[in-house]
């Protein structure tokens, strides 16, 4: 699951993840998406850019 807040500054970033993922998978430039979503600082930007979602891989083994 995407962390609720940015590790460094504490900004709530998780609500932006679903839109980010959707638009990135559609082939849009991540820079533009992050700018649109109001992620100004590089600490918040890396939270979305470098996140790997594994919940779907874990869920079958519950």
């Amino acid at each position, binding site marked *: 699951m995407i962390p*609720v807040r*940015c590790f460094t500054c504490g*900004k709530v970033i998780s609500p932006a993840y679903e839109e980010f993922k959707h638009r990135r998978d559609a082939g849009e430039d991540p820079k533009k998406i992050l700018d649109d979503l109001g992620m100004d600082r590089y600490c918040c930007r890396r939270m979305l850019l470098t996140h790997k979602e594994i919940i779907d891989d874990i869920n079958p083994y519950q």
Partner: protein
Amino acid sequence: MDIIFNRLDENSCRFQIGPVNTAFANSFRRAMIGEVPTLAIEDVRIYDNTSALFDEILAHRIGLIPITTDLSGYVKREECSCNGEGCPACRAMFTMSVEGPGMVYSRDLIPEDPATIPAYDNIPIVKLTKDQKVVVEAHAILSTGKMHAKWQPTTACGYKNYPLITIGEACDGCGQCVEECPRVVLEVHGARVKVVPGRIEECSLCGLCEKACLGSGIGEEPAIKVSFEKKRYIFVVEGDGSLPVKQIIVHGLQFIKDQSEELKERIGEISGGTGDEKQE
């Protein structure tokens, strides 16, 4: 002391403050981060959790959700007349009961008090598949950022000195400093370099323009000099949604005032005066 707002929104603001000294600017910053109380979920009672996340991870994620706070409606648990047992005056209750499949969002936290709700309704908490279930009861309490970062009302909160750029007579308008400046603060105007109107506050005091000026072969001393006003500060305060930034600023200042008055009183007790007299 005066405060000039350049920008003031619900969740972020930028203002100049001056004349103040560094000690005041820093205590103001620290007061806003660590001393303004907000609500955050502290205790989570888990009745059922068959999701992929452990109970403690689930509780941690719920705790980080900012809760809109009405400071007049709540008191701190240790100051409450219930002696910390928990009552509607010191605790906001939430219940959440979700069955999969689907994503659990912060909007699924059902508040007892309709004015005390999660600041964002679309924070994903956990993804559930078929037959998974989460049933929890969460208690939010009032506390400050020095206890835990989840009670900080601010995210980015900092200050810098007000920049001061002086361009001397030796400037020949070669424009090398303009090219070097990463914040686009300078421009060539005729045969001289000048600061772009309204962009002086963007200057980060990096000094690259000074180096570029020296590199252009102007001599020993650069024509452009970057310094700062010692008694003027630019603050940037960003809220997390639990309190409007205006309230954060007011409560931060109030905290400093209360502390100073207490200090004055204590000094008065020790020295036997009111604290107003000058020490011999």
